C-alpha cells in the first residue's frame, strides 16, 4: 500500500531525505523527477503516488507520469510520452494526458515545458553566434614573461639602436639632398682618402725643386735708387699692401679686444698700429666699424 502521508512524515519537513538540499531559507529537492525543484509536500515525487513531470532529453521534451497502480513495479513506474516539438501542440498534449489530474500538477508541468522550450531556443541561438574560447593564463608564466620583457628592454637600448640606424641611413645617403650634412661627410671622407694617399706616397715623393733668386754678396739695394718714381710706386703699392695688412691685423686685434672687453661703442676710428712707418707719401686710411670695438687709445 502506498501511504503518502507516512512517507512524507518520514522524509518530509525536518527529517532526512537523501535528495534534500537545505539552505537557510529554503529546501530543494535533487530528485530528477521533481517537478518544481523544491522540497514540498505536493512536489515530492516520493511522497505522491500520482505524479507527473516534463523532462528534456537531447532537445526533445517528454512527459513522465506515475500512477499508484504501477507503484509495485518500479521498472515500469514512469510512463514516458514524447511531446511535440511545437510548443502549442505540446501544451495540448499535456492537457490531454493529464486531463483529470490535479490542477497543481498540470499547471506546473506546463510551466516547466515553457521554461525548457525557452532555454532550448536560447541554446540554438547561441550556437549560431561566435563562441569565445577562454584561454587561462598561468600566473607564474605571466610573471616570468614580464620580467624577461623588462630585461630585454634594458638589453635592447632602443634609443641608441634607433639613432645608430638613422645615422647609418644618413651616411649611406638614403635621405638624398634634404640635409646639408652629407657634404661634410663627403668632405671628411675625401680628406681621409687624401691623408691615406699622402701617407702612402710620402716616402716615395721627392721634394719639389724650389727656385729662389738670391742676391750677390756685394749687392746693395741702395744702388737701385735711380728710379725714385719706381720707388714711390713701389712704396705706395707696398703701403697699400701694408695698410691692408694693418687693417687685417687691426681687425684681428680688435676682435680680440672685443672678446676681452665688452664695452659698446658706436663708432671708432681705427688707430694706426704697427711699426712706425717711414716718412714717405702715404695715405692714411680710416676705417669705421659699425660693430662695437673696445675703447682704444689712439696712437698717432
Amino acid at each position: 500500500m502506498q501511504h503518502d502521508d507516512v512517507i512524507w512524515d518520514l522524509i518530509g519537513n525536518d527529517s532526512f531525505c537523501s535528495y534534500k538540499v537545505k539552505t537557510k531559507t529554503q529546501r530543494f529537492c535533487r530528485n530528477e523527477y521533481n517537478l518544481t525543484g523544491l522540497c514540498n509536500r505536493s512536489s515530492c515525487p516520493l511522497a505522491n503516488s500520482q505524479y507527473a513531470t516534463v523532462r528534456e532529453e537531447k532537445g526533445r521534451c517528454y512527459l513522465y507520469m506515475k500512477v499508484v497502480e504501477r507503484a509495485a513495479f518500479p521498472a515500469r513506474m514512469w510512463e514516458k510520452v514524447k511531446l511535440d516539438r511545437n510548443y502549442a501542440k505540446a501544451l495540448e498534449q499535456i492537457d490531454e494526458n493529464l486531463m483529470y489530474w490535479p490542477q497543481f500538477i498540470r499547471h506546473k508541468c506546463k510551466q516547466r515545458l515553457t521554461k525548457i522550450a525557452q532555454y532550448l531556443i536560447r541554446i540554438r541561438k547561441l550556437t549560431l553566434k561566435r563562441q569565445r574560447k577562454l584561454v587561462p593564463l598561468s600566473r607564474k608564466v605571466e610573471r616570468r614573461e614580464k620580467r624577461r620583457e623588462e630585461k630585454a628592454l634594458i638589453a635592447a637600448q632602443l634609443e641608441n639602436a634607433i639613432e645608430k640606424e638613422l645615422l647609418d641611413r644618413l651616411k649611406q645617403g638614403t635621405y638624398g639632398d634634404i640635409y646639408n650634412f652629407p657634404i661634410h661627410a663627403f668632405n671628411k671622407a675625401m680628406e681621409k682618402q687624401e691623408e691615406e694617399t699622402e701617407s702612402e706616397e710620402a716616402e716615395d715623393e721627392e721634394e719639389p725643386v724650389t727656385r729662389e733668386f738670391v742676391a750677390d754678396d756685394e749687392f746693395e739695394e741702395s744702388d737701385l735708387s735711380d728710379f725714385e718714381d719706381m720707388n714711390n710706386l713701389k712704396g705706395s703699392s707696398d703701403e697699400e699692401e701694408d695698410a691692408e695688412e694693418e687693417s687685417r691685423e687691426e681687425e684681428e686685434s680688435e676682435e680680440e679686444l672685443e672678446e676681452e672687453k665688452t664695452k659698446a661703442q658706436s663708432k671708432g676710428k681705427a688707430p694706426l698700429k704697427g711699426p712706425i712707418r717711414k716718412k714717405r707719401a702715404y695715405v692714411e686710411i680710416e676705417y669705421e666699424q659699425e660693430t662695437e670695438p673696445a675703447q682704444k687709445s689712439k696712437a698717432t
Partner: protein
Amino acid sequence: IRRDREENIGGGCIIFKLKQKVKPDEAAVQEMDQAEIEVTETKSESGACFPPTFSVSEIKNKQRRHAMFLKLKEEKRKQKLELKKKKKKERKVLGDQAPPKEVPKTIENQRIYDETTVNPEDEEVAFDEGTDEFSAYFNQLTNPKVLITTSDRPRGRTVRFCEQLATVVPHAHVYYRRGLALKRVIPQCISRGFTYLMVINEDRKVPNGLILCHLPDGPTAHFKISSVRLRKEMKRRGKDPTEHVPEVILNNFSTRLGHSIGRMFAALFPHDPQFVGRQVATFHNQRDFIFFRFHRYIFKNEKKVGMQELGPRFTLKLRSLQKGTFDSKFGEYEWVHKRHEMDSSRRKFHL
C-alpha cells in the same frame, strides 16, 4: 660522548667542535686532536676561522648562521676586490703587452645558434621571399590599406589605442566590431581592397592580443601585446604625428621566422617614406620580444640625431603564425609557441 658546542666570542672566533660519537678508547686521542685544533684556530685571527670541512649551513642556530654567512660574504667580496686591483696593476705594468680585455658574457652572446638564421646571401631565402605572399607588395604592385578593429565591446583604453594606431599607420581605418565573425569580415575586406586586418583583442579593459592578417590569403600572425603606453602617458612627447608616411626600422629579425614577421611589419607601411615628415616607426626584436616605438627625429649634425617619442608604444610577443587567413580550427600553422618545448632554455630564441 657528545661534545658540546663552545663559543668564544671574545676572540671574534667561533669555535665549533664536530659532533662525534667517540669510543672510550680513543677518547684521550680525540681530546688531544681537539685541543690542537682549538689552538690552531685561536692563533689564526684573520676574520672568521673555520675548521676544514665546514659549511655555514651546518650551524643550526639561525642568528649565528646568518652572522657567519655575512662574514663569509664579506670575505669573498674583499678577495674579489683584491683580485681586481691586482689585475689592474698587472695590466698597467704590462701596458701594451697586457692580455686583451675579456668580453663579458651576455645573453645575446650566449644565444644558442639557430639553424634557421638567415645568411644574407642565401639564394633559397631570396627566392622564397621573391615568391611569397608579400612579393606583390615588395615589387611595388600594391599599397597597403589597413583595417583596425577590436574584439567585442571594447573598453575606453582599447578604443583609444586603436585610434592612435590608426594615426601611426598610414591608410588605416578603424571599425567597430559589433559582434561580427571574422570569417565573414575577411571576404568583405578583400572585396573592398584592404591588404591588412588588425584585430586588437581585449581582456579586462586592456588590450592584450593582436591578430595581424595579411588579406589576400596571406599569413596570420597572433601576438601577445604587453606594456601599452598611450600617447598621453608618454613623457616628453611631441605633438601628434602628422600625415606623412613614416620610415620603418626593423632590427634583429635574424631567423627565417623572424624574416617573415619582419616582412609582415614592413608591408604595413607604404613604400616611399616621406623624409620631410621625419617620422620613424621602429620594430626592434630583442630576445623574442618585439618593441614598437614611434619617433620624430632631427639631425643636429652629421653625428648627432635628436629624437622625440610620439605615438603609442607597445611590445609584442609572437604566439603563432598561421598560413592563410584567419582560421583557428582548420588553419595550417607554420609556427606555434609551445611553452614546454621552446621555453626550456634561457638562451634559445626563435625570432
